C-alpha cells in the first residue's frame, strides 16, 4: 500500500490536517455523549407509568361560596360523572400522578422510632381510585366503600387500610407478599396492607423512589377537590367538554377550574427531558454537518493544490482508481487520528458530565458504533472532491512545465 507517502505528504501540510482531525475529535466526543444522554432521557420518558394515562382526565373544583357543602358536592359530582356514558370509573383523588405536585411521607414496618423510614408517595382516594387510574391489582383487594373516610378538616389520624405498589412492598418488606401485614406511620399508628398494585409512578419524575406509591382510603377536606375520570378508549376528549359543561351547570357554589387530560401533566413534567433530547439532537446534526463540510473543504483544497502532482502521477501510469484511493486513504488516516483523539476526549467529557449529573460513565458501545459511522461519513465526504481529483487529465502535468 501507499501509506508511507501519504503520511509524509500529510506531515508536510500539517495544519489543514490537524484542523480537520480536531473537528472530528470534538464531534465524536460530543456526539457520543449527547447520544448517551438522549438515550437516558428517552428511556425515562418512555418508562411505563402503570396507569391508563391515555384515557384519564382530571377535573378540579373549588368551592368558594359560603353555602358550599364539600361532602354533598363530591357525592353529587361523582354520581353525575359515573352516570355519564363513556366513563369507566371516577374517583376523588387530590394528587395527580406524574404532575410534579403531590405528597410523600415515610412508612415503617414497626412502630419503633428506630425502625427505618421508607418514603412513599401517597394518594388519597375512594373505592374507585384504582380503577379510575387504571392500575393493575395483583394481590389482595380494593378498598370497600364503607371504610372510605371523608374528612371535615386535615387530620393526622392514620387510615385503617392501605394498598401499596410492588416496589413499595419490596422497599418495606423485601417481598411482594405483603397482604395482611401491618405498616406504621411516623406517629406509630398502624394500617393493614389489603392490596398490592403491579406498578404505578408517583408525582415527581426526577425522584428515584417514584415507583413507591401508597393508596389511602380517604377523601380530603375542602374546598378543593379533584376527580380522576377514566374514559373508554376514544371518549376522553368528548368527555372533557361534556363534563366541564355539566359540572359547571350542576352546582353554582363552586367553580370548575379546569378539566384536563392526564397527558397535559405528563407532557409538562417530561418537558425538560424532551427539550434536552431535542436540543442535543439538533446539536448532533449541526456538528456532523459542520465537520462534514470541513472534510469536504480540506479535501477540495488539497485536490486543488495537487492538480499538477496528480497529473504527473497519471502521466507516469497511475490509474484513476489509484488517485481516488490515495485521497480516500488519506482521509481515512486523518479520520482515524481524529477519532483516536476523539475517544480520549469523549471520556474526558463523559467524566465531566458524570460528575455534573452523577451518572455512570459513557458506555464503550457508543464509541464502538460511532467510530465506524464517522469512518463512513469521512469516506463519503471525501468522495466528491476525490473524484474530481481522479478526473484530472494526465496532460495537465505537461502543460505548465
Amino acid at each position, binding site marked *: 500500500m501507499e501509506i508511507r507517502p501519504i503520511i509524509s505528504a500529510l506531515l508536510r501540510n500539517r495544519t489543514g490536517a490537524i484542523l480537520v482531525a480536531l*473537528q472530528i475529535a470534538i464531534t465524536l466526543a460530543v456526539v457520543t455523549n449527547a447520544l448517551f444522554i438522549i438515550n437516558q432521557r428517552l428511556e425515562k420518558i418512555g418508562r411505563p407509568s402503570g396507569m391508563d394515562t391515555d384515557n384519564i382526565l382530571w377535573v378540579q373544583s373549588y368551592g368558594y361560596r*359560603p353555602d358550599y357543602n364539600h361532602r354533598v358536592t363530591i357525592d353529587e359530582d361523582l354520581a353525575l360523572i359515573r352516570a355519564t356514558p363513556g366513563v369507566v370509573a371516577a374517583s376523588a383523588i387530590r394528587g395527580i400522578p406524574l404532575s410534579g405536585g403531590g405528597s410523600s411521607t415515610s412508612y415503617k414496618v414497626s412502630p419503633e422510632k428506630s425502625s427505618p423510614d421508607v418514603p412513599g408517595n401517597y394518594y388519597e382516594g375512594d373505592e374507585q381510585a384504582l380503577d379510575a387510574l387504571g392500575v393493575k391489582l395483583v394481590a389482595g383487594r380494593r378498598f370497600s366503600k364503607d371504610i372510605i373516610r371523608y374528612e371535615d378538616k386535615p*387530620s393526622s389520624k392514620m387510615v385503617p387500610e392501605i394498598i401499596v405498589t410492588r416496589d413499595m412492598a419490596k422497599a418495606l418488606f423485601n417481598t411482594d407478599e405483603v397482604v395482611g401485614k401491618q405498616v406504621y406511620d411516623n406517629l406509630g399508628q398502624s394500617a393493614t396492607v389489603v392490596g398490592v398494585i403491579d406498578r404505578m409512578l408517583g408525582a415527581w419524575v426526577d425522584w428515584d423512589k417514584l415507583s413507591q406509591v401508597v393508596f389511602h382510603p380517604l377523601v380530603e377536606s375542602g374546598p378543593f377537590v379533584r376527580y380522576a375520570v377514566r374514559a373508554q378508549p376514544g371518549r376522553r376528549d368528548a368527555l372533557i367538554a361534556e363534563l366541564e359543561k355539566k359540572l359547571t351547570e350542576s352546582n353554582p357554589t363552586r*367553580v370548575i377550574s379546569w378539566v384536563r387530560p392526564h397527558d397535559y401533566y405528563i407532557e409538562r413534567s417530561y418537558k425538560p427531558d424532551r427539550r*434536552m433530547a431535542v436540543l442535543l439532537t439538533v446539536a448532533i446534526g449541526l456538528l456532523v454537518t*459542520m465537520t462534514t463540510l*470541513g472534510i469536504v473543504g480540506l479535501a477540495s483544497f488539497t485536490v*486543488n493544490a495537487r492538480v499538477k502532482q496528480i497529473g504527473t502521477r497519471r502521466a507516469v501510469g497511475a490509474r484513476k482508481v489509484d488517485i481516488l484511493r490515495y485521497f480516500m486513504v488519506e482521509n481515512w488516516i486523518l479520520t482515524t487520528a481524529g477519532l483516536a483523539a476523539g475517544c480520549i476526549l469523549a471520556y474526558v467529557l463523559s467524566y465531566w458530565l458524570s460528575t455534573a449529573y452523577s451518572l455512570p460513565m459513557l458506555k464503550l458501545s457508543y464509541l464502538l458504533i460511532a467510530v465506524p459511522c464517522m469512518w463512513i461519513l469521512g469516506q463519503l465526504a471525501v468522495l466528491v472532491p476525490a473524484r474530481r481529483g481522479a478526473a484530472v487529465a494526465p496532460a495537465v502535468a505537461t502543460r505548465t512545465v
Partner: protein
Amino acid sequence: MFGYHLRLGLKSLRRNPVLTALMIGAIGLGIGVCLTTLNVYSLVSGNPLAARDDVVYAVQMDGWDPNEGWDKDRPTLAPYELTFRDAQAVFESDIPDRKVIMRKGAFVLGSADEKSEAKPYIAVARLTTPDFFSMFAVPFKYGAGWDAEGERNAEPVIVLSEEANQKIFGGGNSVGKTVKLDDKEYKVLGVLAYWNPVPKFYDLNNGSLDDPEAVFIPYSRGELLEVVSAGNTNCWKPETIDSFREFLNSECVWIQSWVELRTPAKVEAFKSFLDGYVAEQKKLGRFPRPLNNKLSKVSEWLQLNQVVEKDNSVLLGISFMFLAVCLLNTVGLLLAKFSGKVAVVSLHRALGASRKLIFRQHLVEVSLIGVAGGLLGIGLGYLLLLALRQLYNSYEAVTRLDWSVGLMALGIALIAGILAGLYPTWRICRVEPAPYLKTQ
C-alpha cells in the same frame, strides 16, 4: 488607508462567494447557537435584584430533623423555608430596615360587581407583610401597597398584578374598586406594572421559572381566614396536626423570609439576634440540630437553590464546543482561500507592500467575515429562541432576547473571526515572493 483595506477586503471576499458564504455561515451558525444557549443561561442564572444585592438577605434557620439533614447530599444546608413561629420571630425583630415574611394561598378571584362579565377564576395570591413591594423594588402602575397598620389589622386590602387587573377590570386605574377573593370583598390599593422576575428569586420553591402571583394581600389575613398553603410545605417531626392552629405551631417549614440590612453592623446584629433566638428555642427543646442560621444575598441565594439546571450548563458547554468546530472549519477555509492568493500577495510584496501592510489588509478581511458572521449569528440566534418557545413551559421568560447578550455575541464573533484569521494571515505575510513570481 482603512478604506482602501476595506475595499480590497470586500473585493477579495466577492471573488470567492461560495467560500465566503461558507465561512460566514460557519461563524454565524456557531455564534447563533452560542447566543441562544448563553441567552437562556444568562436569563435563568441572572439576578433580577442585582441593584439591591448588597442589602437584601434571605433568612434560613435549621430546626430540621436531628437524624437527617434537609438535604442528605449537602449536610450544611438548612431548609429553604421557615416554620410559622420562627418567621414570626424574624418579623418581630426591629433590627432589619425592612423585613418580609410571606407565603402563597389560592383563592377564587372575581369581580365584586354582580353584573361584571369577568368570570371568577382560581388565582394564586401572595400573602405577605407590606415591605415586600419596596424591598424587592416591585413597580406600581397605580396606587401602592398597604401599611403596617393594615397588616396588623389584617385588613381586606389587595394589590393586583397587571394581568389580574386586566382580567377583572379590563385594565385602567382600579384603585379604590373592590374585588372578591372567595366570598370576601377586598379593596384594591394598588395595581402593579408588568413584573416578572426571572428567576423568581423571592420564592424558588415551586420552580425558578414560575410566574409571580396574581394578587397580593396582607400576610395576617392567612391566619385570620385559616388559608392553607398553596406553596411547598415540608415536615419532618412526628406530631399530631388536627387543626390549622396545630399546623401553625408545628415544625413544618412553609414560610419564606427576607430582611433588608443596610449596614454591616446591622448584619452582625441580626445574626446574633438569630443565634440568640435559636439558643432560646433550644432550651425549649426545639432546634435539635447544631446551630446553622444563614443570611444569603440574592446572588448567593440563587446559587444555594441551584437555580441553573445542569442541562443548561451542559448545553452551554456543548454549544461552545460547536463554536470551536465552526472556527476550526473557518481556519481551514481561510487557509485554503489565502493559499490561492499567494501569487497576488507576492506581487504586492514585490511592488513594495510591507509585511505589516499585508497583515493589516488580511486582518481587515477576516474581521469583515467575523462581523458578518456575528450579525448572521444574532439573526439565527433570534430565530432559534423563537423555536425554543415550543420547548419551554414559561417560554416568554426564557426566550426574551437579552440585547447585552446579543452585543456580547457580536464581540465573540469578531474576536473569533480574528482569531480564526490570525494564523492564515500570519502565514500569508511570511510568503517569500520570489519563487511565486518566478513561475508566472
